Every structure is written in structure tokens, then in C-alpha cells.
């Protein structure tokens, strides 16, 4: 068992579904931990595809966006795909303002995210 503090991970083969434990993801000590836990899925646990479920996350700052972009690069480097789902309206607007909705594949629900991967929960 891997000890995670910033997220809960469910694995389906090479796909991981990630839920975050913090309501706010900002540039604090936690965000380094969040990044490290997320990156280790690819670097150490040989996960290829990831669905990030932001259910319960009410706020994130640009520091969190930077971590997501780095995660996306890591996943692309192993030939995988990163998808994002369950964004609040406000957070979705952040992706639109920054035009990061063009970088990330954003889905409304976890079910839709899984479907895009050809999986189901």
C-alpha cells in the first residue's frame, strides 16, 4: 500500500482515477506533496493513463495548474493520456481564461471521463 495524503487513487490496470483530499489546492507545502504523489503514479507505479476527478475541490491557483501541466507532460512522455473531470463552474472558467482547456481533455463527469478511456467504473 502506498501512503498518500493529498489524493485517493483507484487503479484499473494502467489507468488511475485520482481524487483530491484538499478543498483548496494552492501554493503551500501541500502542493509539493500533491505534485510528488501525482508524479509518482507515472514515475514509480507505471500508470499510463490518468483521470483526475476534481469533485470537492473548490479552489485552485496557478501553482496547481503548473503541476497539472507537468503531469500532462509526464503522461504524454510515456504515451498515455490525462483527462480531467468534475470541475466546478468557477474552476472551469480558469481553464478557459488561461486557454488550458485546449491543453487538457476536460469531461463533465467521471463516467464520461472513463468512457473516453474506453473503461467504465
Amino acid at each position, binding site marked *: 500500500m502506498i501512503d498518500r495524503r493529498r489524493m485517493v487513487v483507484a487503479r484499473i490496470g494502467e489507468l488511475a482515477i485520482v481524487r483530491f483530499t484538499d478543498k483548496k489546492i*494552492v501554493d*503551500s*507545502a501541500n502542493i509539493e506533496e500533491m505534485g510528488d504523489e501525482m508524479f509518482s503514479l507515472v514515475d514509480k507505479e507505471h500508470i499510463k493513463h490518468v483521470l483526475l476527478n476534481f469533485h470537492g475541490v473548490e479552489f485552485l491557483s*496557478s501553482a496547481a495548474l503548473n503541476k497539472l501541466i507537468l503531469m500532462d507532460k509526464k503522461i504524454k512522455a510515456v504515451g498515455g493520456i490525462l483527462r480531467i473531470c468534475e470541475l466546478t463552474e468557477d474552476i472551469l*472558467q*480558469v481553464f478557459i481564461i*488561461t486557454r488550458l482547456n485546449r491543453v487538457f481533455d476536460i469531461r463533465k463527469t467521471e463516467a464520461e471521463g472513463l468512457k473516453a478511456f474506453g473503461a467504465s467504473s
Partner: protein
Amino acid sequence: MVEATWGWNLHKEIPSSKDAAHEVIEHLLRAASDAGWEGRDFFHIQMAIEEALVNAVTHGNKESPDKVVELEFKVTAETVFMRIKDQGAGFCPDKLPDPRDDDHLECTNGRGVMLIREMMTQVQYNDIGNEVIMVKQRKKG
């Protein structure tokens, strides 16, 4: 008197740490919430203060124990005023590359100032760039 319309004020110096920053951000957000701010406007205030204060602490004061960040907040039901001044060397806020350009989309930095500008009613950096004044005005109607 104009001054009398300001419901909640805070003028203080905090140490150059992210923890101190987030503590004072919580105070501000509670005051804003008490003054009736909610929804997207509240989210925008949260984003602007987070980005500006983290910038002051990290880029400005470089988390030096010898430097402080000066804060001035004024919150009413109609307006949130935030002034943040660090003791760093400043920067040129008008010369930043636009993180929305296709070529910059996957850059892992450089979105904070742009988000502040997009989300506030009014944003003003001083000459040197070590002080920013941000104002959020409630939308009419």
C-alpha cells in the same frame, strides 16, 4: 465621509512565508464572505489575493526572514480593496509574455499576473513593481 463606508479594514505587515500569507488570506476571505461576497466574485477575489500574495512572498521577498509584506485590505458589500507591497526588487508587469499564446500554453509558470488582471475590476502596479493595488467592484444589478 467616504471612509465610513468601509466595513472591514486590515493594515498590517506579515512575514515572508507562504503559511503567513495563507493565514491572512483566510481572514480576508472570511471578511469578504461576511460582507456578502459569494459565487464567482468571491472566487475571483480568492484567486487575486492568492496569486498576488504568493508572488510578493516568493518572487518579491524571496521568503527572506528579514523582509515583510505590507498589506492593506478594505472590504464592504460593494468593493474589495487590496494593496500588497513587498520589499523586493520589483519587476515589469507590462512586459510579461502572454501565457495564452499558443507557444506558451504548456509553460509551467507565468499565469498569476494575467489571472489577477482578468479577474479584478482594477489592477495597478507601482513603478518598480513591488506594490500592487487590486480592486473588485460588485457588478450592478
